[in-house]
């Protein structure tokens, strides 16, 4: 029992990732079942996987390209595409953060009766949202071609940013689900922060127009890195490593967040069942 407290942080980080890795297939299958359960009782069922993002993209295109005819923030790109390539990954990030933060609390009845890998619970939440996001991107890209964006190899960079975003979300999910399990107010604090981040993460307006100092500060936010990355690779054929400084900063941030997350998760882990 006492050994656990004296384990080094690197050992804990390894043990957590190992636990998740061993459960990877299980997490994916459970995520698919839970997605299916959410569509239970609907006539169209899993067709909504496709229909939901398709309708969302159609609405944005209709409002901003047909209705408002807004011009782009940068280059020759329609505003609707510019905005979608930012807001769609944002919905993924925002949705994952909320779902993962709540994940341990809402599974209380299962976790109290079934011995399930605790580190896998927030990861499962991230995976559920990721599957939805993957559908969205699979629909967005052909729509972009239809609207005049030329296919380029650099667009594949979107998969790197999806992976980077996933790593950030897993680290954050392990952190926030542990905090929220013992401190329920956390999600209430997180909500206004997320609303703020929506406006400062380059989601609906470009931070390029701000003063350089301000830009630097806003780019400390790792979500900005993901959102700008999506846009750069989908619309502007900017390579992944063109700004090597931000790549290094992002991964150090994720690594540090993961370290803190593991530390907190490990410390609170044995209390989860008794407090949720």
């Amino acid at each position: 029992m006492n050994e656990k407290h004296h384990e080094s942080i690197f050992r804990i980080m390894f043990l957590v990732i190992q636990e998740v890795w061993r459960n990877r297939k299980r997490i994916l299958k459970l995520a698919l079942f839970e997605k299916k359960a959410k569509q239970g009782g609907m006539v169209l069922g899993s067709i909504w996987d496709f229909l939901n993002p398709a309708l969302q993209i159609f609405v944005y295109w209709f409002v901003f390209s047909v209705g408002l005819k807004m011009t782009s923030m940068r280059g020759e790109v329609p505003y609707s595409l510019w905005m979608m390539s930012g807001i769609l990954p944002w919905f993924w990030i925002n949705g994952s953060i909320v779902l993962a933060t709540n994940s341990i609390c809402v599974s209380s009845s299962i976790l109290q009766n079934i011995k399930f890998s605790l580190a896998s619970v927030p990861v499962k939440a991230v995976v559920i949202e990721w599957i939805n996001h993957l559908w969205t991107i699979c629909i967005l890209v052909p729509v972009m071609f239809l609207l005049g964006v030329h296919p380029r190899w650099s667009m594949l960079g979107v998969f790197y940013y999806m992976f980077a975003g996933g790593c950030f979300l897993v680290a954050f999910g392990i952190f926030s689900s542990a905090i929220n399990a013992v401190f329920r107010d956390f999600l209430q604090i997180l909500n206004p922060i997320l609303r703020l981040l929506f406006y400062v993460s380059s989601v609906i307006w470009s931070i390029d127009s701000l003063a350089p100092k301000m830009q630097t500060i806003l780019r400390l936010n790792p979500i900005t890195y993901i959102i700008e990355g999506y846009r750069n690779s989908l619309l502007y054929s900017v390579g992944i490593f063109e700004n090597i400084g931000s790549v290094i900063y992002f991964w150090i941030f994720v690594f540090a967040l993961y370290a803190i997350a593991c530390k907190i998760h490990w410390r609170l882990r044995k209390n989860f069942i008794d407090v949720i």
Partner: protein
Amino acid sequence: MESQNSSDVIIRINQILKIYPLGDSELKRLLDLLFPKHYSVANYVALQNVSCEFYRGEIVGLVGLNGSGKSTLSRIIAGITSPTSGDIDVQGECSMLSTNSGMNLQLTGRENIYYKCLLLGFTNNQIRAMENDIIEFADIGVYIDQPMRTYSSGMRSRLGFAISINLNVDILIIDEALAVGDANFAIRCKEKMMQFKQDKKTILFVSHSIAQMRDFCDRIIWLHKGKIIGFGPTPEMLSIYGNFIQEFNHLGKEQRELLTPTLMSYQPDDIKI
């Protein structure tokens, strides 16, 4: 059980103590969690001085009033929660089964078999191997491919129990009465549990039904206010516990609080443990 030797011990529990802190506010509860022992919160002692051993191939019944620590003890054995102090050594795979947890009403019965077993830690191939046995045992016909929200409560419990009893584990904790299904289902449950026993697997059976305990169990543990009052052969323990319950039911609220039962006080004249 006299013939049991120490190599047959599958669970060894030594001096377990389990304390739940009772904060009078959420803030205090949080502070106690972060800085244990610095904040004086009342403690609820769920289990104390609990020591016992279980053998391979026996069915042990766990009896006691509400709040006596039965569920806490099962959770500790299942590894879901850990004791505040004391040791527990479990040799093998252990599953605790509450028939209704881990079931999703929007999924079909078949999907729920997979969903629940995945949660319990089985792999897809293992589940596929158990699937037919579970479906056959549940005996809910074409409903197996219908969403579970369309099931009657009897069908839900039957499927839940069918999953529990067909799992390939060394120790099974059944934290619910077998008050599911008709007489025919009850007979099949009993047969299945006896087969479990023959395979040298251990069942810990938590129930309020003394009749079922008498039917299945080899030994009975009696818990009261977190302590083991007695652990012995079924007929003797159940008649003692029966006497206790009878007296308990006639007591007023205050007398009940003060009651500290011992084996001796409820022992019928013709029984010696």
